């Protein structure tokens, strides 16, 4: 029998949702203040003042109406997370929509969902003339969403450790860095802030060395870092990374893309002095192995067609796109149409595999994740051993992730459920793409890019694409970022409300 949610459950959801919306509203003051003081753009800055007031009003009202002292349980926490990402998308789209650079409010919603989920697919029009305040907001989205919207609330706005833990788990993260969840959230911010300072300085200096003006170089550096480390792939200029025409700039970006796709728990271990972890961890080992395989597929594909005649160009075009796909960032040093017109099917398959598998768990990256890929490979090896060895032999399979663990059937089952869920998402978007008339490989490429929160595009994502495909990709980005479970919990909650007793 399905139990109908009680009024207290709904109040609890409303209270926590209100706090998260309040947090989103407060963050809008950053582009407002920067716009007034640094960029001297009064009109664009006012868009943020209007939007911040709307968000704060909704957040405060919701928290006040649903005020409760009860702890948030796991199920309602997942509903809060699923709803808060939708609320973040809609409210953050208001200033972008007011900028006049989006064809419709749906396009602005697509952009913000793409930003918060660290995807990087974009529908902005005339990006090169977008105000710096709006551009900062586009790039701030991945920085907030990459760490997690709930992380903002847990760090500053929500009291009580049990509720905070459930919110944290609802965002597709199941690893705590330290026993206390509030300290975990703050440490995630600490890692991001340290790298933000380092990345902005480094990219700013490289920017100056390639001829950008200092203020522009550091603005670009901040934006590129936020979208690179948080594996989003937004850029302040329409040609994306191609705009900079610099090998050093590209290498620095590769550095931050890979670092951004690392597990936060791995950062924590290494930063505490456990340096060997980087070579022993199943995720980093699997990442290296997978990269070698997809390099082989992609490079052979490109070589076969003679797309790039020079090794260095092959590195700057082929390898860069590959790492961008593998880390689920989506930065590009080629034009979207070149994937289809020049790259050929084999190289595209290599990129699709890298996008589908993605970066590390508990990071800003999307996709199936290296931890799951590693565990599936180990489980496969264990089963092969069981077949080969004598029936009475006890076969155990170990793996190292922070500590040495044994593969368990329940763990493999959980891993396979999420993996199948991702394949379902990739397939769903492909099916709708093909139904709307796009070729199979292009539809598969774009759907995988959206669901794995990558952001590489072969040209389908455009303001002129059908609204139904925009909505499909929004759902894919949302479900992919939350690793499906919170989305299922939200649907389950509605079903329980309608049919429960």
């Amino acid at each position, binding site marked *: 029998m399905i139990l109908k949610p009680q009024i207290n459950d709904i109040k609890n959801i409303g209270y926590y949702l209100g706090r998260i919306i309040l947090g989103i509203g407060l963050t809008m003051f950053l582009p407002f203040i920067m716009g007034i003081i640094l960029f001297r753009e009064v009109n664009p800055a006012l868009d943020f003042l209007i939007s911040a007031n709307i968000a704060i009003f909704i957040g405060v009202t919701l928290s006040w109406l649903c005020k409760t002292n009860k702890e948030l349980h796991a199920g309602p926490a997942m509903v809060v997370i699923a709803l808060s990402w939708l609320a973040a998308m809609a409210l953050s789209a208001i200033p972008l929509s007011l900028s006049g650079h989006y064809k419709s409010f749906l396009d602005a919603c697509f952009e913000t969902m793409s930003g918060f989920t660290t995807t990087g697919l974009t529908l902005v029009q005339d990006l090169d003339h977008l105000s710096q305040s709006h551009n900062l907001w586009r790039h701030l989205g991945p920085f907030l969403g990459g760490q997690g919207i709930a992380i903002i609330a847990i760090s500053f706005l929500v009291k009580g450790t049990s509720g905070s833990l459930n919110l944290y788990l609802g965002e597709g993260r199941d690893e705590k860095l330290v026993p206390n969840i509030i300290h975990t959230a703050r440490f995630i911010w600490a890692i991001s802030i*340290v790298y933000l300072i*380092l990345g902005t300085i480094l990219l700013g200096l490289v920017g100056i060395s390639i001829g950008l003006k200092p203020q522009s170089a550091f603005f670009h550096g901040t934006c590129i870092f936020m979208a690179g480390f948080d594996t989003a792939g937004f850029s302040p200029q329409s040609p994306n990374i191609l705009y900079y025409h610099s090998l050093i700039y590209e*290498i620095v970006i*590769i*550095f931050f893309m*890979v*670092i951004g796709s*690392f597990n936060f728990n791995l*950062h924590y271990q*290494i*930063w*505490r*002095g456990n*340096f060997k972890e*980087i*070579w022993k961890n199943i995720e*980093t080992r699997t990442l*290296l192995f997978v*990269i*070698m395989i997809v*390099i*082989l597929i992609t*490079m*052979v594909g*490109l*070589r076969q067609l003679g797309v790039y005649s*020079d*090794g*260095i160009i*092959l*590195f700057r075009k*082929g*390898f860069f796109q*590959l*790492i961008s796909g593998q880390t689920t960032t989506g930065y590009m040093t080629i034009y979207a149409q070149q994937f289809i017109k020049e790259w050929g099917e084999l190289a595209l398959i290599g990129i699709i595999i890298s996008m589908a598998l993605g970066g590390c768990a508990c990071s800003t990256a999307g996709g199936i994740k290296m931890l799951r890929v590693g565990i599936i490979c180990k489980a496969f090896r264990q089963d092969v051993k069981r077949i080969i060895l004598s029936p009475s032999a006890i076969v155990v399979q170990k793996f190292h992730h922070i500590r040495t663990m044994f593969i368990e059937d329940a763990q493999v089952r959980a891993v396979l459920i999420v993996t199948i869920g991702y394949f379902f998402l990739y397939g769903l978007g492909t099916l709708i793409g093909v139904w709307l008339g796009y070729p199979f490989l292009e539809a598969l490429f774009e759907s995988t890019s959206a669901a794995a929160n990558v952001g590489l595009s072969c040209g389908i994502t455009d303001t002129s694409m059908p609204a139904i495909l925009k909505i499909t990709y929004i759902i894919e980005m949302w479900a992919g970022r939350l690793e499906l479970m919170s989305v299922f919990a939200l649907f389950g909650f509605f079903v329980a409300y309608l049919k429960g007793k």
Partner: protein
Amino acid sequence: MKKITIFYTVTLGIFWEAVYVMVIIGVGLVSALAIQYIR
């Protein structure tokens, strides 16, 4: 931990992370250069 110790371990941590990325970049660069000789 003292602040200087934290600074030292974090710097070393970032260094080792950079070494890992350099290995990946090295693999990519060598593959891109080597593939030119394969027919």
